[in-house]
């Protein structure tokens, strides 16, 4: 099974969502012009997530006159587009720097992703000669996996909790503890050993370390045509009507594949107007497409088509063609007992609200860990999460972690917002300070918050909060105090967490 990986180009913008945020638009809509700039030269690209474009070199490279010429062509097209965006004022005035990006060409997604990382540092496209990717890989440290997670998808997809960067870090740290620092070290182990030690992670790692793509090529008959496509009797102008059909098709396609123990990782979506105009796009998702995620992607494709090409008539045809399928490692269906009606209804309701007020109006908690309760969960915009495929890790309250807050957890947690400022006064009426050795200048006696005044009944702490000490820009040196309060003039007791940072107290959490 020494199958050959496809030679691919990876274009990666490492901080795309931050860039889009700075522009004040969604990551997808900001990325669309970049995709279009590339599509002008390469007919069919895969869009995995905003910020990442992948496509096979075979045809485009021949057309452009070689890999180097292709990389230069794509780079120039993207830079022209980014330049145009800055000049036309779409970006002007926001003070946002042009986003950095890397272009890598190699055999297989991982090697190409690593080449793209390399290209980020050098500023020029990085092309690994055909056949040389394995050698490059064997010298590459395993922690490169963390940077490549978005391109190659989670290692061991199918394992609960394998979705996020944090669990990649765990895998990498495990490998390092085992003395496996480079992919070359991993490649010395047998597949059976890796699987025995790491389960599904091991199988994927074996393939990656040997320069193969994660998924072995699989030749299976695609679902029958009636399952994959729909022709409307008359042109449809309404986006919702098109998406309703896409929803049906996607459910049927995914259902058909699941019934055969498969899931689709690469999906070709084509939309056709009554006048023969077409929108075609390839979608890739390493851990398989769910029906809901397909609908979201088609929504992106449809919006972009309408906005940029303005088709002259309504949609008459929709086709979802699974281009690559993998054996479903029994992820969603077996884990959650299959999709329920309730899940679908909830996803539709979320989509409606997002249509009304934008993707940031709904946020989804995603486990991240850490010492500060405000950071245990990251609230992710709804369009960044595949609700059907959400796998929540076994949430263990981190009571044993040094510096973490013990249970019970506060029900309201606050960011460091300007209105979160409070006063904590000691018995002498002066603001309470904390020395570098975490000794308080005075016992806390009174807390003022807005117009309310509270007497301090009891307190715990101060506990140090020192996070990201290795990163001078984002380092936090703060202390945390748990306070039991009674509001003046009432018998009402309340508990809160106050944080002192840069000589200013703020409310950090509240037990409501």
């Amino acid at each position, binding site marked *: 099974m020494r199958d050959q990986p496809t030679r691919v180009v990876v274009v990666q913008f490492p901080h795309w969502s931050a860039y889009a945020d700075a522009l004040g638009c969604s990551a997808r809509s900001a990325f669309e012009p970049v995709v279009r700039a590339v599509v002008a030269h390469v007919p069919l690209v895969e869009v995995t997530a905003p910020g990442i474009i992948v496509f096979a070199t075979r045809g485009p490279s021949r057309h452009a006159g070689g890999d180097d010429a292709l990389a230069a062509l794509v780079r120039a097209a993207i830079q022209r587009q980014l330049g145009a965006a800055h000049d036309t004022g779409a970006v002007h005035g926001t003070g946002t720097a042009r986003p950095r990006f890397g272009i890598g060409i190699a055999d297989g997604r991982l090697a190409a992703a690593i080449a793209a990382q390399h290209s980020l540092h050098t500023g020029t496209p990085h092309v690994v000669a055909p056949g040389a990717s394995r050698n490059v890989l064997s010298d590459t440290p395993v922690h490169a996996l963390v940077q490549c997670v978005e391109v190659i998808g989670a290692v061991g997809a199918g394992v609960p909790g394998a979705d996020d960067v944090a669990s990649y870090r765990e895998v990498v740290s495990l490998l390092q503890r085992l003395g496996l620092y480079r992919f070359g070290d991993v490649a010395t182990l047998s597949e059976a050993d890796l699987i025995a030690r790491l389960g599904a992670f091991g199988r994927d790692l074996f393939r990656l370390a040997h320069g193969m793509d994660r998924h072995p090529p699989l030749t299976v008959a695609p679902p029958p045509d009636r399952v994959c496509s729909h022709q409307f009797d008359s042109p449809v102008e309404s986006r919702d009507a098109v998406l309703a059909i896409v929803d049906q098709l996607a459910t049927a396609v995914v259902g058909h594949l699941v019934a055969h123990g498969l899931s689709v990782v690469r999906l070709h979506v084509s939309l056709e107007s009554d006048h023969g105009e077409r929108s075609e796009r390839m979608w890739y998702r390493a851990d398989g497409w769910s029906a809901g995620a397909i609908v979201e992607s088609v929504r992106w494709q449809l919006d972009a088509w309408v906005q940029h090409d303005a088709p002259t008539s309504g949609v008459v045809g929709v086709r979802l063609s699974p281009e690559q399928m993998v054996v479903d490692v029994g992820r969603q269906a077996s884990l959650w007992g299959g999709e*329920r009606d*309730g*899940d679908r*209804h*909830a*996803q*539709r*309701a*979320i989509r*409606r*609200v997002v249509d*009304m*007020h934008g993707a*940031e*109006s*709904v*946020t*989804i*908690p995603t*486990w991240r860990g850490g010492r500060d*309760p*405000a950071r*245990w*969960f990251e609230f992710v915009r*709804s369009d960044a999460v595949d609700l059907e495929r*959400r*796998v*929540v890790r076994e*949430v263990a*309250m981190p009571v044993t972690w040094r510096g973490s807050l*013990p*249970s*019970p*957890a*506060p*029900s*309201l*947690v*606050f*960011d460091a917002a300007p*209105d979160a400022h409070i006063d904590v006064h000691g018995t002498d009426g002066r603001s309470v300070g904390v020395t570098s050795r975490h000794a308080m200048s005075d*016992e806390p006696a009174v807390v003022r*918050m*807005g*117009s*309310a005044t509270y007497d301090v009944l*009891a*307190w*715990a*702490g101060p506990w140090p909060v020192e996070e990201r000490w290795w990163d001078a820009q984002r380092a936090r040196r703060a202390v945390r105090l*748990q306070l*039991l309060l009674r509001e003046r003039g009432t018998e*009402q*007791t*309340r*508990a809160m967490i106050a944080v002192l940072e840069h000589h200013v107290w703020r409310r950090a*959490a*509240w*037990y*409501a």
Partner: protein
Amino acid sequence: MPAVRAPLPVASSLLSLFTDGGVVRGRTVACTGDAALSAALAVSAAATRVGSWLAVVGVPHLGVGAAVEAGVAIERLILAQPPSASREWVTTVAALVEGFDVLIVAPPASLTGHDARRLQSRIVARQSVLLVVDVSGALPTSRTSGNASRAFVADLDVQANTVSWAGIERGGSHITQRLVQLRVGGRRCPVPREATLDLSCVTSQRVS
């Protein structure tokens, strides 16, 4: 009349408070007191473990750690931040009602009684449960006001007041346990019921 569905399940330790075997669907429950939010999470947790989705509306600072402790199945929890204008707020929450069995809402101060009742009729039609929380005491600077909660005509009132904070001293230890007295009354519960509980462990942490 919509078909009557089984009540929304609650944790066994709350069954003595909700005598119908859970929270009857279509009802509006007003949660007040200093532990209002924790109480609302505790009441909704069991339902999320059997497939119901929970939307928390207008509480952008929800401490998800507390939701986890209360036993909420996080994979069926979302937060929504609708605009605060009364009409738009209700339209948005009504859209959520279509897909969510349980909603915990902190209404904006602008909410009118008319709009609140529009939402309540959606709740009845869709057979969901609406938990209205008043977090104004916790957020002196927020625009959410206690009055907004009164725009709703509640079927049940849940008063949740902390009766003891254990563990914390003047400079020692930390809060290890919080006991909350829950008092359930209101027009659909003429005989009020009380129980004192540790809300952080009413629903067992593990999915059976």
